[in-house]
């Protein structure tokens, strides 16, 4: 499996990362504001649920990192991955419902795929979309799926965004990948053992770390990794 990495963005407790540039948090909890990653007004951002906010921020940074290399939005597909989905806004909405005043503003975000829609609206991305969920390796599955789409000619560019928003944690990694090389990163190589079980299992943990390399995944008794080579020109 291989693909060209055109842009990389990441949001975590360590800060905002756009390609190799990391802007660490000064201190305190992660309180995302649109002005941290966007130079243009973004009034919608304030209405989004925590999962959408962290995912949209990471995607914005990935597309900013890609700069002029971003293809036409009609050609950009999206593969998303989230293990916990929208559990935070599920709780917010359920609280409103239990009080007899179900909140429509919260309800629309009670779908884990909504961040793909917010990213599509913000950047005009009209390609195919899939959101993989339900297990701790959903982000990894999204990455493998996105690269598959490129390999098989199902898309010429894919924005892969893995995101989690749970109590006390907000983290997202986004990568703009393309079939054709020539990005500021050299060819990214992904290796997955043929017998790797990519999905679910209580004994599997996933690590989104090691910037600007991307994703490592560790399974009990075996280690498999997806590594984006750091070879910026």
């Amino acid at each position, binding site marked *: 499996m291989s693909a060209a990495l055109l842009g990389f963005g990441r949001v975590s407790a360590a800060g905002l990362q756009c390609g190799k540039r990391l802007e660490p948090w000064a201190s305190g909890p992660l309180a995302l504001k649109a002005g941290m990653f966007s130079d243009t007004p973004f009034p919608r951002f304030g209405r989004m649920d925590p999962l959408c906010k962290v995912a949209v921020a990471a995607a914005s940074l990935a597309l900013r990192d890609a700069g002029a290399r971003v293809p036409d939005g009609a050609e950009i597909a999206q593969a998303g991955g989230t293990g916990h989905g929208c559990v935070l806004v599920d709780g917010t909405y359920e609280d409103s419902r239990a009080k007899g005043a179900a909140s429509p503003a919260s309800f629309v975000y009670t779908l884990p795929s909504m961040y793909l829609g917010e990213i599509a609206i913000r950047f*005009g991305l009209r390609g195919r979309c899939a959101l993989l969920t339900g297990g701790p390796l959903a982000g990894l599955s999204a990455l493998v799926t996105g690269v598959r789409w490129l390999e*098989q000619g199902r898309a010429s560019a894919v924005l892969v965004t893995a995101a989690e928003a749970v109590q006390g944690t907000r983290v997202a990694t986004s990568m703009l990948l393309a079939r054709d090389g020539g990005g500021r990163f050299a060819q990214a190589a992904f290796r997955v053992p043929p017998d790797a079980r990519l999905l679910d299992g209580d004994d599997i943990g996933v690590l989104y770390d090691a910037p600007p390399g991307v994703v490592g995944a560790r399974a009990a008794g075996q280690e498999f990794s997806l590594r984006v080579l750091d070879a910026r020109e």
Partner: protein
Amino acid sequence: MAVFLSEYRVVLPGGVYDAAGLHALLCEGRSLLQPDGSHPAMTFPERAPGHATRLARQALADAVPDALVVGTTKGELEPWLEDRTRPQGPGALLSGLGCDARIVRAVSTACASGAQAVIDAAELVQDGDATDAVALGVDALTPFVTQGFASLQALSADGARPFDRERDGLSLGEAAAAVRLRAQGGGARLVGWGGSNDANHISGPSRDGSGLALAIRRALAGHDPASVVAICAHGTGTRYNDAMEAKAFRAVFGTPPPVFGIKGALGHTLGACGVIELIAASEVARTGIAPPTARCRNPAPDCELDVVRGEARDVGRGLVLSTNSGFGGINTALLVDWGAA
């Protein structure tokens, strides 16, 4: 490369149906909806937590495919509604299913989740990542969901009327459905699929239908649009969805083939509808008979479609298209035909 479809199971409040049974039910033109537009499952009878998982188990039966792809909007919610420390969502449903498939995963793309599961399963088979795959769509009705749609004022006052002049909203339903996909076989074949995003509105369809048209064109790549004999539309019965679909169909086909929808009969089954509608479409491809659109009495002038209504219609054998759309602007299109091995 086409992917072959078989072993259909549709779990509805009245029983479990195979493809021919579903087709016969739909061709009767009856509706499961009650006179006030509600669905039998909306009364929330006393039931043990884990209803979505039980529905999914019924649809999966004893199948142990190489890959299982579950399409669902909310997965299993009920234990979490009682106790927020309990697992919830698609992950809880996958765990509860306990399927021994080598690859087990969930996709969630709002009301296109079932169709997306079919696409994902087809690509696992097509790429040789799985020898066979089951695509399963499921969602259970809970107060969480019904009151949410009510808060959006999306529910019909007296039952969904897809493509009807007096349509005023959707009716929710509850179901699970499964289909097995293989690289080889006979009978119904999935010969094309496509997806897109409207990039327009977070909870409403694009007004011009261009996003869905894009998905349909992607599904039709390499096929003559004139060979499509019928369309199984998403057809929720909301003003905007049905009008949007009509625009998309006209943009792609000029004069679209006959259109039918099943949500007036079964309600909107959310994550299950994409799989059920694929099964309905595959039966139309097999028989050449399109079922009527239950509860559509007077076709809407703003849709300008040839809606199959009243009774089933002989549309002839050929390609049949099935479309779905969901919150977040996601569109899918599946294309089936019936052919020899």
